[in-house]
Structures are given as structure tokens and as C-alpha cells.
């Protein structure tokens, strides 16, 4: 398997001197293509910070994030935008859909940024929304969808641009347990069928059970790893 993302000595510190907080401290992590990885740990362990740094949403205090062997820390704002657009799919805990766009338009938007032609965009959106079980709800705005449906749109949005990796920050935290499990089943299916690489953070034991690789974080440090093949 090829390496999609690799972090080398990745650290994120806040404050300085006596008030220095090490949200993440020298994390070395390698994510291979097609993995379904859960970053687990209690609140404040640095899960979200790690995903944010991997996704280029924040700059590390020390260390590097490599995408296909290229370090992204030196990227300019524009280069980071392009990196996120072309290589990363994000699923957020609070869905974070664009409220004024419909489900289909939310998915289409990212492809518009990629410069994909309209007919191809529409074809991909229709396929993706069908895969996540939202056929017939394409024109609904986020406010007209349930939490679970909104998160499905977020999954579709993350996948439709065909990124190298999907980063999901506690994707089921705002959903009831059944909806959360359904969403997880869908992500597992997409991973197994399409070989899509998923890295998600969670502290829900039920969700951890479904992951094939578990990375345990505590106080910003990788405590241990577990693989389930």
C-alpha cells in the first residue's frame, strides 16, 4: 500500500513559558491508502488538532506533514487551499454545510472549485447522493434535512471531489446512536467498496469497534496503536 499522509514530529503548542500547552507533541503517523483509521482518546487529547494539522487547516509549531512525500508546511495560503480542495475531504462534527445551498449544490460547490465541467459535476453529485441514500432530496437545503441526512450530505461532499483521504472529526457526535451507526456503516461500505482512505476521530467505543486501525492519543502523544485485520 502507498502512503497517503505522513506526519513527522508533528507538534502544536499554544501559549509560551509557564502557560505553554502542548496540544500535540511530536506525533509520527503514517496513513496508507485504503485505511480506515480511528484516532481515539478522551477530550483534549489532541484528536481534532491532529486532524486539523493533517488537513492543512492549521500550521504546526514543529514537525511536518507530508502528502505523497511533499511537505505542506511551507505552502502559502493559496497553495494550502488548493491542497485541501484536491487532496482532502472533510467531515465535521457539526456538518458545516453551506446553509444557502441545496444538498446537491453543497456537493457541487467543491467540484466547481476544482474546475470540473457542469455536466460531469451533476453526474457525480447524482451518483454520490444516491450512494449516501439521499436520492430525491437533492434540492433540499440543510435546514430541511435531519442531522443524519445533513451528515450524509457532508460525507457526499467530502467524497465527490475524489480526494486522497477523508478526515472526519467526530462525525457521529451530534447524531443519535442508531443514526451514528448507520452513518458509520455507510463509511465502512464506501471504504471497502471504493478503497477510500478514512481517518476519523472519536471517543465512542461502539464506533471504535468498526475501525481497522486505532491510534490512541493521550495528552497530545500517541500512546499506542492497534490494528485489526
Amino acid at each position, binding site marked *: 500500500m502507498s502512503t497517503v499522509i505522513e506526519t513527522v514530529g508533528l507538534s502544536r503548542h499554544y501559549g509560551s513559558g509557564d502557560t505553554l500547552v502542548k496540544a500535540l507533541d511530536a506525533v509520527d503517523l503514517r496513513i496508507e491508502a485504503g485505511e480506515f483509521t480511528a484516532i481515539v482518546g478522551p477530550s483534549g487529547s489532541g484528536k481534532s488538532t491532529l486532524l486539523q494539522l493533517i488537513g492543512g487547516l492549521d500550521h504546526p509549531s514543529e514537525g511536518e506533514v507530508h502528502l505523497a512525500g511533499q511537505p505542506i508546511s511551507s505552502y502559502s495560503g*493559496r497553495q494550502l487551499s488548493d491542497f485541501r480542495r484536491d487532496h482532502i475531504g472533510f467531515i*465535521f462534527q457539526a456538518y458545516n454545510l*453551506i446553509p444557502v*445551498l441545496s444538498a446537491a449544490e453543497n456537493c457541487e*460547490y467543491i467540484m466547481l472549485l476544482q474546475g470540473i465541467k457542469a455536466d460531469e459535476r451533476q453526474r457525480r453529485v447524482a451518483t454520490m447522493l444516491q450512494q449516501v441514500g439521499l436520492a430525491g432530496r437533492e434540492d433540499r437545503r440543510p435546514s430541511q434535512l435531519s442531522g443524519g441526512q445533513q451528515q450524509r450530505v457532508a460525507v457526499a461532499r467530502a467524497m465527490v471531489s475524489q480526494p486522497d483521504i477523508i478526515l472526519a472529526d467526530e462525525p457521529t457526535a451530534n447524531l443519535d446512536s442508531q443514526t451514528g451507526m448507520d452513518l458509520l456503516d455507510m463509511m465502512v461500505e464506501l471504504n471497502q467498496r471504493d478503497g477510500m482512505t478514512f481517518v476519523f476521530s472519536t471517543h465512542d467505543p461502539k464506533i471504535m469497534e468498526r475501525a481497522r486501525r486505532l491510534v490512541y492519543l493521550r495528552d497530545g502523544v500517541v500512546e499506542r496503536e492497534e490494528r485489526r485485520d
Partner: protein
Amino acid sequence: MLMFKLALRNILRSRRRTLLTLLSLGGGYLLTALQLSVTEGSYDQMLSTYTRDTTGHVQITAEGYVETPRLYDSLSLNDADLSELEAQPNVVAVTPRIESSALAYGETKSFPVDVVGIDPQREAGLSFLADKLRAGTYLTDQPDTDGYFAAMIGAQVARQLSVGVGDELVLVSQGADGSLANDLYRVSAIVGTIDSAESRRVVLPLRAAQQFYAMPGKVHRLIVLGRDYRRAPQLAEQLDGWAGQHWDDTDVGATSWQVVAADFYRTMEADKSGGQVTMVILIFLVCVGVLNTILMSVMERTGEFGVLKAIGTSPGRLFRLIMLEAGLLAILACLLALILVLPINAWFTWVGLEIEPIEFSGVLFTRYAGQMSFYVFAQPALLIVVATLIAALWPAWRAARLVPVEAMRRL
């Protein structure tokens, strides 16, 4: 198209704020468009009247006469010349004039006067002279039964010399040939008021003036009226070529009214610029309010912008999105306000606002008139849109520079 949709829906999501912004921008547009309309309409009325009554749109004279009028710098003229000039494209009317000065005598007093020799019929068809008679009758170009030519005099001349309609008037001056010029005329009319431009003037029939100044078949100025006073420089250029060929034995040229009355023209332009400053201040005030609205809207959506950046929207695209929203808001405001401005401006243009009569160049203005033109509607719209875009620059720049992870904490 999706970006346009996104911008439009963003504008419409906070309806109350959008409505207030539209009212502010639309109100600004309405006021500036109406102010411009009335300003342009009034200037148009004034300049149209002034040029028609005083300078014409273009003057054909001997070279140097416009800058330094001298009795001797004249040009030969016959009926065929006039007909040919009238047949030139864009020429509506033509009239010849002789202009000089003289000492006028009444029964007991004398007074220095400006003498103008005119073709009575042509002059009446071009200027408003015939409309300004306070007493008496308009000039004829034939002498009366006693052999006297008629003269129309200004109000000041009448007062200073204590002469009225029917009285005799003696003029003394120097002829173009160096001889002593003197003749007797019968006052046929009093023209204008004490304050009007004709106040110190004696107006003679052209033939009488030519005889008086020993200038047979000659005139000083050919006053040309074109289709539009604004296009006088183009007409002057056209007629300059024609005049140069037509009077090949004399240096003759055509000059637009903007050059003939350069001081007046500059004053008018300066006055107009003053009006524009008022308009810019008004728009600035409107846009300060708009800046506040756009800034609030950007701050409220900081978290959302963070998400947009997180999923790959470049800083430049986010900047353009906010500028597009601001531009759309301004265009929408102008279009909505235009629906109101059109009928109000139409009323100003074709009915107008009654005012206390003001005399200008001997002509009474009784209403403020507007102007229906593309310029009147387009210029304020352009200013509003540009000013709104300028007001949006800072909020847009601020949004474009957001760090996604920090911005998303605002969600």
C-alpha cells in the same frame, strides 16, 4: 453560476438587513440621480439659452477677432455666402453681426454705447432679441419715410440719454476707413432691463451699421446655430475647414462658443464640479453605512467562511464572492430605485418645479427642469456601485485572510 447563486442567496438570507441596505443605497441613488438631473437640466436650459442668445454655437470671424475684436478685422459677406453656410451639414441657422462702439447723443446728454448691427429677420430667428422688447417695435432693415434707420436701445442708454421710443438718437464714432462716422437714428424700441446684457447697447439694422462704420458688404461675426450646443467644438472644426476654403483671400476661422466665451464656460464647469463634490459627499455618507452592513455580515459569517476555506475555497475566490455580493446589492438597489427615479425625473423634465422667476441673459426662467438622459441615470449608478465595492474591499480582504481553524471556532 453557482457562485452567483451563492452570492445572491447570501444577500437574501438576512432580509431585514438587506432591505435596510437597499433602502440606504437606493435612497442615495435616488437623491444623486435627481440632483444630477436638476443640475444638468438647469445648466442645459441655461447654456442652451445663453449660447442661442449671445454667442451662437460657433462664430466665423477674421483670424484674431475673437481674442481682440477690432473694427478693421472683418470679412466680406453676400447672400450667396450665407446660403452656402446655411446649407452646411449640422447648421440650423446663421446670422451676421457688426460690433463696435460709439458715443450716443440724446437731446442734451451723451453716453458711450456698444453698437451691434444685425440682420433683423435672421437675428429674430436665432436669438431671443425680438422677445426682449420692453417698449416699441422690432427693427426693420429699411429706413422710415424721413430716411432714418431705426435703432433699438438698451434700458441704460434710454435712461442716461433720457430718450424713448420715437426719439432721435445720434451716434458718433470712427469708420473702418478712418473717416468720422456720425448719423441720426430713430429709436424704435427699448430692449431688456437695466441689468440685462443689452443695457448699454444700440442695435442697428446691418445695412445701417455697414454704412455707419464704412464697411459695405462686410461683417465682424457670423453667428452659427448648430443642432446641439454641446457639439459646438465638432461643428467649429467642420466649419473651420469650410471657411478656410470659402474665404481664400482672408484668414477666416470658426470658433466654438466654449472658446468665444471661455471665462463663462470655465465658470460654468467649475460650478458643475462643485455640484459633483456634493454628490460624492452624499455617496460617501451612504457608503459608510454600507461598510457597516457588509462588515457585520462578514463577521457574522466568519465561521462559514472558515468552512468554505477548509473545503478548498481560495482566499482570492472568497474575496471575489464578497465583492460580488456587495456589487449585486448595489446594482439591485440602483435598479429598484430606478423604478422610482424614472417617473419623478420624467415629471421634473417635462413639468418641472415652479420657481420665482429668475432673469438670465434677458430671458426669464420660471422652473427648475430635470434632464432625461443616460448620463443622469448611469453616472450615479456607477458611483454607487464603485463606492460600494470600495466599501467592501476591507471586509472582503479580512475574510480572505481568515485562518480556517480559527474562523471555524466561531461556528
